[in-house]
């Protein structure tokens, strides 16, 4: 089933950021979002992931299929690498974390506490989480931040393998991963008006 976004308008804090965004993402495809800082890439990804409601338009085919990775990795410093990964695997009803550890070269670190990892190692663990979700649409927000060249290659391999299995990936990134992907420049969809939409946010 394909992920279909139709005429989507997204906003942050009641102010529209992007409007009229449409794209479709089929199995085995990747879509890269580009645009300057503050152009609304994160807001768009959060809306597609279902964390916030669209201001207009619709997101179809996203129900229970999305594995979301944000700027923060959601790791617990007091838990070890394998405990962190095992936790997310059980939350998503999976059990095997070995392939994820292998894909991101984390096998030597399994008993290390996440709080003692370097920034790049944390990021690798955060990305390894995607593989234990068993979900087929990866929604990634700047996945390569703090990764070195070798780790970026590991990540690109993981995405390629995911696409080859019939998965899909939607990501906001600025570096070239060497993956065959469509590109969507969000700066063309900037919302014009700044009128306050129905502001039902709890605390504005």
């Amino acid at each position, binding site marked *: 089933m394909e992920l279909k976004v139709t005429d989507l308008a997204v906003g942050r804090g009641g102010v529209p950021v992007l409007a009229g965004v449409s794209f479709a993402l089929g199995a085995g495809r990747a879509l890269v979002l580009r645009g300057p800082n503050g152009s609304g890439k994160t807001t768009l990804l959060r809306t597609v992931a279902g*964390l916030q409601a669209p201001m207009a338009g619709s997101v179809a085919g996203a129900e229970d299929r999305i594995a*979301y*990775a944000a700027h923060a*990795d959601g790791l*617990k410093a007091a838990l070890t690498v394998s405990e962190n990964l095992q936790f*997310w695997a059980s939350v998503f009803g999976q059990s095997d974390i070995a392939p994820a550890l292998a894909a991101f070269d984390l096998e030597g670190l399994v008993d290390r506490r996440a709080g003692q990892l370097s920034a790049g190692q944390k990021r690798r663990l955060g990305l390894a989480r995607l593989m234990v979700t068993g979900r087929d649409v990866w929604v990634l927000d700047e996945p390569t931040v703090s990764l070195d060249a070798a780790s970026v290659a590991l990540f690109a391999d993981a995405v390629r393998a995911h696409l080859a299995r019939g998965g899909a990936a939607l990501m906001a990134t600025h570096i070239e991963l060497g993956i065959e992907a469509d590109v969507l420049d969000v700066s063309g969809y900037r919302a014009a008006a700044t009128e306050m939409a129905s502001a039902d946010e*709890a605390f504005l």
Partner: protein
Amino acid sequence: MRALFFRDLALALRAGGGFGLGLAFFLIVVVLVPFSVGPQSALLTQIAPGVLWLGALLACLLSLDRLLAVDWEDGALDLLATSPLPLEGILAVKAAAHWVTTGLPLVLAAPVLGVLLNLAPGGYGVLVLSLALGTPALSMIGAFGAALTVGIKRGGLLLSLLVLPLYVPTLIFGAEAARRAAQGLDPATPLLLLAGITLAVLAAMPFAAGLVLRVNLR
């Protein structure tokens, strides 16, 4: 769900988890009361049930702002919200883990600290029973308050102010049951009302908390 419960327990028990915070606060309050009131054992006996309940309630309140704030700060809350677990279930499980690490130790420590306050011999059983019945409601209401204030920097003050009025019914009936038992009266009515409040809170609050958290995560 079970994984989340055991993860929260493990996090609370490991270094920096704040497991002993509520218990230590409870201990401090109860130990200091006889010094501030003075060595009048008759007066202490009279106020013991109320002081023990108040101490337990404040100790519970102290740890609430970490209930969701930690998961919010490291991004785990966003990731949990996109997981197959329902938000209502996540909040109920987190409240349960909070009760096991905060409420349950208070329940178990209360009879020991009751000795310090010269609690009447007949009051111990009902004191423990009333705390065991009442503290789950404190944790669940706390989870609702935490969901309401998540994402606000230094939200602890707002959280306390929002949650305190909701804690009042539990405090009234809990302390009343303990007082009646200590004076040799029948504590059945306040105990039943306390149990009723807790059951209503456990039934309704996860949904209210899920609703406000969904709004706050946007």
